[in-house]
């Protein structure tokens, strides 16, 4: 597997402060991610992890340089083009789950399909199948509030998978979970990775990062080093 899924070329991001000063958060990052890779991004807080995550997830556009996902350059895209790209290519998993509390699990999981224009009957079928896959097939009509944190995160992962994205972006997915539940969620990520899915996971926990093939260390907006994990070499 040597298809390049993501390519960052001199990627920079600046933020304008209220006083008119400009702060550069990312200083020209260059890296590529191949399809099927499991990458962890680590770094202390303030290192630009979240900013990079927003760029990778097409939630924001770079200030300079280019970010290609499957060969498409996001630098010049309009908000709607970015929305369409997110819909087709990216599945998000957040630290705080970010499920819609008033909707049932099946409706939460089916929501991305609504925005990508899948007919109603297919939506229910697909969402049901994926909820089965993450082990919640018997709780389709429950509300998120009726579930434990680990179960909610499974629903969020199901929602991320529903549009068959090229890339799963997980931002501290175990940050709100206890150790045991964290292990379950990471095992789920491992399984998805074995099935060939590309996963990028942002974390500050070394234990979590160990599950990835590669770890990208980000310090002060620059790539400090990229380390390949031992289990990936074998």
């Amino acid at each position: 597997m040597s298809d390049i899924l993501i390519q960052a070329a001199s990627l920079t991001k600046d933020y304008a402060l209220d006083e008119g000063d400009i702060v550069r958060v990312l200083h020209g990052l260059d890296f590529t991610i191949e399809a099927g890779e499991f990458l962890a991004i680590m770094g202390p807080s303030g290192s630009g992890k979240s900013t990079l995550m927003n760029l990778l997830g097409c939630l924001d556009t770079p200030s300079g340089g280019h970010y290609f996902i499957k060969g498409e350059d996001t630098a010049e895209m309009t908000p709607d083009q970015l929305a369409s790209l997110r819909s087709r290519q990216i599945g998000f998993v957040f630290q705080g789950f970010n499920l819609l509390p008033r909707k049932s699990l099946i409706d939460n999981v089916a929501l991305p399909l609504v925005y990508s224009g899948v007919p109603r009957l297919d939506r229910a079928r697909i969402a049901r199948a994926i909820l089965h896959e993450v082990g919640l097939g018997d709780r389709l009509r429950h509300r998120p509030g009726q579930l434990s944190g680990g179960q909610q995160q499974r629903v969020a992962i199901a929602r991320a998978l529903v549009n068959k994205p090229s890339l799963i972006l997980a931002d501290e997915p175990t940050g709100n979970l206890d150790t045991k539940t964290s292990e379950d969620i990471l095992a789920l990520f491992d399984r998805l990775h074995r099935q060939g899915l590309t996963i990028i996971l942002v974390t500050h926990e070394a234990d979590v990062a160990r599950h990835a093939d590669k770890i990208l260390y980000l310090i002060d907006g620059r790539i400090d080093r990229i380390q390949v994990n031992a289990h990936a070499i074998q």
Partner: protein
Amino acid sequence: MQFSDTFIEASQSMGANRLRTGLTMLGMIIGVASVVLMLAIGQGAQALVTESIASMGSNLFIVLSGTSTAGGVRMGGGTVPTLTYKDTMAIGELESIAAVAPMLPNSAPMVYGANNWTTQVVGTTSEYFDVRDWQPSLGVVFTPTDLRSVNRVVLLGKTVVSHLFGDEDPIGKTLRIKNNPFTVVGVLSSKGQSLDGRDQDDTALIPFTTAQRKVFGNQFPGMVRYAMVKAASAEVMPAAEAQMNDLLRQRHRIRAGMDDDFSIRNLTALAQTAQGATKAMSMMLGAIAGVSLLVGGIGIMNIMLVSVTERTREIGIRMAIGARTFDILAQFLLEALMISLSGSLLGVILGVTIAWLVATTIGMNVVVTLTSIFLAFGVAAAVGIFFGFYPARKAAALRPIEALRYQ
């Protein structure tokens, strides 16, 4: 995103905050109901006035004979027999005049079988029917021959028919007016109440000559109490008035500087004033109701703005999983529109119900037209879009990362 999905999203969010949605809707309900009700009341009043004016006849003058003075006491209009049948015929010759009817009214008892009824019996000519735009619903009007031959024929108003004949067909029957036998030749169509509330159908019409010679008698032969004059058109009314004035002064040999011994009243001016006043009233009612509709609209905007702020994070999530600007815009706009449309639907129902209650309980004349319902509905929809647009626009313009970070 399909429309049906947007619809489901909007209804779910309306259902999630039932009390709030209901209160917002109440603003629209009251606004629309008041517009419908006020328009109904205004149009009812207008219809009443228009009907009264139409029943009176259009472009009308009344020419009254003069006033008399007895020992310094002025006796009022019509007390001196200065206006004659010949005067009225001369007025009829004028170019600006379409028709003239001399009027000789008097109260007289009428008897048919065991029934009796006293009413205003009016001696007039066949031109009266043109002047008043009044045709019989049964039978015929009397003819110039009836006048020449002084025939004892009578046309009856609806009220008189019901008092004397009940359900019987009066045509061809003979009744007595002041003990003179009269043959009923026609029944007048119903005119209802006049502007001042008199029952216009409580009347009987007989030929002028018959009234003068056979029923009332008269110490001044040829004298007319008053004449009803119809001008050829609304435009010539001022000219007609001036011409009649000149003609009568000349015929009565009144020298310059002396007072008229007759008076001419323009009935159309009165009608126009009444019509103008009711129109102004209904416009004012409509405007007041419109303000409450506007307030309802602002209520929608207020709630939608709160809702957008409250659901910022939800909007961020939706954007992250692929919602486009338009999807968010449509969702919030549709929600505002649905609140305003369902509010106006309930408002129309409430307004029509209250209008009906007002009509049945206090007998007020109200007219609910389809136009006023559609008007209220259309304005409400426009208000919904107008006041829903800003909050929806605000939601759609949120940046996903900021919306997601919002606590």
